[in-house]
């Protein structure tokens, strides 16, 4: 009853209009919330799917239709952590080494500039 008649009735104008604006604000915020979450999840899906797949047993990893319920396993992580030492080491050496080198070269130059 309120919204339509309020805009048509010039006498009782003020209060209902304020209320409808408030309602519009709240519904607007709800709209932004829904839109925001839909977009956010859409962007996140590939990463989410990677994380889910990481916990799947091999037999559930590639199926049609894709499986969303499965008994999670840490077996794949165990395999990864057992063989990952050298790769982490190489990445660390490359990252730390290049950062130090860049700092050594850039600090004097930056102080000067």
């Amino acid at each position: 009853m309120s919204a339509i008649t309020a805009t048509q009735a010039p006498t009782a104008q003020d209060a209902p209009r304020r209320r409808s604006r408030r309602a519009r604000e709240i519904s607007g915020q709800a709209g932004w919330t829904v839109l925001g979450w839909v977009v956010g999840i859409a962007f996140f899906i590939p990463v989410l799917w990677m994380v889910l797949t990481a916990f799947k047993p091999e037999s559930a990893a590639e199926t049609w239709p894709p499986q969303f319920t499965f008994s999670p396993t840490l077996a794949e992580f165990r395999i990864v952590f057992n063989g990952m030492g050298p790769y982490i080491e190489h990445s660390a050496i490359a990252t730390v080494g290049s950062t130090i080198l860049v700092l050594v070269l850039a600090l004097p130059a930056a102080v000067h500039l």
Partner: protein
Amino acid sequence: MAVLEDVTSPPATGLRPRGVGRRERWQRRLPLLPALIYTIVVTQVPFLVTLWYSFQSYFWNEPGGAHWTGISNYKEVFTDPNFRSALVRSVTMTAIAVIVAMLLGILLAVLLDKKFLGRSVVRTLIITPFLVMPAAASLIWSGPMLDPNFGLLNWLLEPFGVHHVAWLTTHAYGSVIVVMIWQWTPFMTLIVLAGLQGQPQDILEAARVDGANAWATFRELTLPHLRPYIELGILLGSIYLVTAFDQVRLMTNGGPGTSTTTLPFYLYQKVNFAFDIGGAAAAGVVTVVLTIIVASFALRMFARVFQFEEAQ
């Protein structure tokens, strides 16, 4: 080198008084020397070597080693339709990916600029793709997402009448671009969002008081304000995406045929499969010259963006 000087010389000349002695000038230069020497050693020396090889006929799979051939490598580069198509493909791929990522980035930034429930969580969700390594992102997409038999995308699209599309074979070019866009939209969003949040609120308030609607305010006030940020995002995105190799190598391997062979991948093929060091060097030199032309324009824009920041 000329490009580097362009950017660094104005403040340097501003700082340096006219009549300083030779000794003092060297004292000022000295701290810069390590960085300068290092830069020359790792960028200019390899370039000179590349230049040298580009005039040689040098095939790794032929006996006899390198010998001088003049400009025949360059002639070959300019007449090779594969080089030309790779160049065009690199440019169009980068342009499409950067422009779409920027448009999406502006939309997402406007969305994230609104107050809503769980905004900070959504912001994190949206930024995540940028934090994934390009190689890992390519593998996520080429395997679990786009696989014709088990891919999640086909499953999501099945209600809309899409049945087991082999994305990487039938839409290879588009697939690679989609992954690039997926990775770079968050970056564009962050830059544009920084611009949006740096916008003075009183101007927007004034526009509202004057009766401007949301779209007019956005077009007439917000967009001009965002312009330097958009330029910066486009510039940085182009620099990174034009050299993108991971996506092409891991998702489509340049194919089917040559339909996703970009310039970096073309050079890689020329060295690793054709063993044509001279030809690859010539193609590399041509690429560098073209890049310098584009980059000098881009850097001028870059300098203007920073001047704009200082003026504010």
